[in-house]
């Protein structure tokens, strides 16, 4: 256990990303897929912030990229949930295996 630095945060973010990836591959419910995507987006933010903090401390690019990613993630989550709820209304199920038509 050494003093946490850039590599610790990069490792944490890689682990978090792979956790999200595992969830994305194994889950079949659309809402849990969305949760896995959120985990992956968070790990990317963590990465950007770590680089901003340790490699270019005099700049603020990482911070602003993270802020914009959070905004895009919010828009994406809202749209995905609208689609999921509409899918539930028409198909009575939000399983990815049963959502196989683009239009009905």
């Amino acid at each position, binding site marked *: 256990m050494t003093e946490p630095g850039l590599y610790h945060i990069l490792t944490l973010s890689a*682990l978090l990303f792979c956790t999200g990836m595992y969830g994305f591959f194994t*889950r079949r*419910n659309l*809402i849990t897929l969305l949760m896995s995507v959120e985990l992956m987006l968070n790990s990317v933010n963590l990465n950007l912030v770590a680089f901003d903090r340790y490699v270019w*401390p005099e700049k*603020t690019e990482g911070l602003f990229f993270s802020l914009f990613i959070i905004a895009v993630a919010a828009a994406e989550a809202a749209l995905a949930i609208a689609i*999921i709820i509409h899918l539930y209304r028409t198909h009575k199920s939000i399983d990815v295996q049963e959502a196989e038509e683009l239009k009905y």
Partner: protein
Amino acid sequence: MSGSDLVFYILALMTLCFGVLTVTSRQIFRAAVYLLFCLLGVAGIYFWLNYQFLAAVQIVVYAGGIVVLILFSIFLTQQSGEKLPVPAVSRKFFSALAAFCALALVLVSVFRFSFAESGKRSALVSMSQIGEKMLSPGEGGYALPFEVISVLLLAALIGCIVIAIKTKPDAR
């Protein structure tokens, strides 16, 4: 090991544990609550790194917005008490293998590359600095992405309404 290091390790452990629980829990409601704690752990790491504004945004947008939205959609789409099906063993195995290979690839390339870490501690980015940069059109300003994001949010808002609107059965 100082107290600050200990805080980092606790936050990292909490984030990872709740992340794993999020993707493995069989009850979807619990998975959403675990996701909330995982996101709070990430916000804690932002606090630890001295990014107060980003941590606040993380808590407000993720914990306050997205997780609540996910919880509501779970209420609307799931029968209560129903557990998620267990994925097949082969599917679990190959997913874990793929995730592990990706992890190994990333970690190997990260640790083989030595980043030019500058020893400087970054100064705290103040709220007024963030505000000025967000609206400055000049060098190093983010006025254009800011406007694009605002249009994107408007488009998402309208899109959500159009998608989720209830059409009358006889109108189809």
